[in-house]
């Protein structure tokens, strides 16, 4: 009795073999190389502007100061950008989840005229992005009068063929019998979709949601093209264009960059398992 309890409490650990020692040391060195740029940015954000541009440079600040962070909040519109980023990313994620789940289910499980043609057209959308068709997409959005608006930033990010494809593949794997049984009991299609299909696909929806949020939070090219008004910019865009425009102040720039980048990294630390599964899932779906 007591021996089983002991086995439960002390997790069996393998001994430190020589190969494990070497591998762990190697892992530590490589990790240090990967973390170094972010650490350097963090330290620099606590330097004074003069020290940040000093020759030769050094890693740690000689005088720790919060000047850069203070200036960031006092002078710029970084809080506006943060809110804009949040609004855009949340809206994009919500709309993408809703429309791509509906479309994925429609393509996987229902019949209608011209379905296969439409599916082919949607798949061709995998090759189109704002990087490829930026200029015509901009003139289209301009014609709709949506330049320098939230709608102009949000809506063009809401038609990702890749996400429809991922959910389409997933819905195809759900056994048909589940829905058939519900239909026989008199449930309508919409009810079946919302009460049977959606709860079953929570992991896939989480994957799509996580991936969409990361992509949208970090998106630079499209918001850069469609906004000129500094009050409407998102974090990546505002930091890159406004903060770079009047002579770079490195300490402030690093502080702003960390403010844009750290939220996702902190969320990652807490939801590591889900995010890793989500990214791997969306990536692997391309196979």
């Amino acid at each position, binding site marked *: 009795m007591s021996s089983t309890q002991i086995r439960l409490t002390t997790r069996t650990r393998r001994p430190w073999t020589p190969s494990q020692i070497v591998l762990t040391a190697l892992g530590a060195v490589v*990790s240090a190389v990967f973390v170094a740029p972010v650490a350097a940015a963090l330290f620099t954000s606590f330097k004074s502007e003069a020290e940040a541009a000093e020759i030769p440079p050094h890693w740690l600040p000689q005088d720790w100061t919060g000047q850069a962070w203070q200036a960031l909040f006092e002078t710029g519109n970084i809080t506006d950008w943060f809110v804009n980023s949040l609004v855009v990313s949340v809206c994009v994620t919500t709309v993408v989840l809703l429309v791509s789940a509906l479309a994925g289910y429609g393509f996987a499980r229902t019949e209608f005229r011209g379905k296969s043609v439409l599916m082919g057209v949607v798949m061709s959308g995998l090759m189109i992005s704002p990087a490829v068709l930026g200029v015509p997409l901009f*003139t289209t*959005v301009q014609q709709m009068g949506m330049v320098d608006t939230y709608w102009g930033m949000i809506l063009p990010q809401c038609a990702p063929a890749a996400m429809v494809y991922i959910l389409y593949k997933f819905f195809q794997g759900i056994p048909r019998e589940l829905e058939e049984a519900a239909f026989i009991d008199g449930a309508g299609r919409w009810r079946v979709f919302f009460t049977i299909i959606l709860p079953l696909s929570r992991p896939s929806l989480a994957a799509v949601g996580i991936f969409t949020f990361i992509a949208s939070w970090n998106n630079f090219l499209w918001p850069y093209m469609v906004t000129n008004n500094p009050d409407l910019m998102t974090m990546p865009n505002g930091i890159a264009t406004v903060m770079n425009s009047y002579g770079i102040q490195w300490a402030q720039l690093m502080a702003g960059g960390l403010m844009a980048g750290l939220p996702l990294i902190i969320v990652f630390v807490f939801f590591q398992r889900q995010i890793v599964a989500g990214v791997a899932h969306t990536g692997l779906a391309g196979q």
Partner: protein
Amino acid sequence: MTTSAQTVIAPARARTATATATVRRKEGFQHGGWFVAPFVALFALFVIWPLLRGIWLSFTDANISGEGASFIGLDNYREALDDPMMWDSLGHSAYFTLLVVPCITVLAFLLAMLAHHIERGKWIWRLCFFAPFLLPSTVAANMWQWLFTQGIGLFNETLGIDTPWLTDKSYAMLAVVIETLWWTVGFSFLLYLAALQGIPAHLYEAAKLDGANAWHRMVHITLPMLRTITGLVVALQVLASLQLFDQAVVMMDFGPGPELSTRSFVQYTLEQGFTSYRVGYASAVSIIFFVIIAVVALARMWLLRTREEATR
């Protein structure tokens, strides 16, 4: 009397019940148009319409205001194909792709092997290798711009060298490549890690029993089992690298780099459209780019299909 009535009615009821059941079952899967309608509406407005519009504009001399455009046939395409600037920028994007894709694939594989084989602290390796991918492109680029700046940058300082990374045309693209490796390798790393964890352990146990050493196990089990994922990683990286834009412009202060050496195809297109206001010409260049991307994507699909048929 009652019993006979029941024997008549009950089967009839049962028959109508099965009939309604079949109808309901069939109808359940009909008329799915409403499910796809919201997506198709957005897709038509923001993907298909811009594509068609781009094709139309590419045959005109439209400017940014969109007024007074007239049809000029294939002139834009003729001009683009004769424009050395277009070929140069296409060359830069291709050069970047050729450097990034092999490096990122090998590096991602090695990092995944490392993280997979260390028994302790798995989450911390995953965090360190993947975290840069979570930074916005512009933030990662600004960090490296600062690290690479001659004099005040820590990159040269740490290595004890004095390379003009951002101001010399033979180094500028390499600087962008190094930044890209650091920033995006985490994504491919995760794909490899997931694939490694999916290889059944009994394969390795059987090989061990047969006396295969670690090297043989890697060459004869790990690498063949990772072939599909490698194809995927390479394909995704090629498509992403050809669309190079964010890192290069931010690291070069929104310019084309020393002696135009980091001007990518996307940057060239956007300059034509938004700086020179030549929307018609920019559309023609975009369509050429779309064709290139489509050819790459279709080539991959074709390769996959032939391989599938070969294994069958």
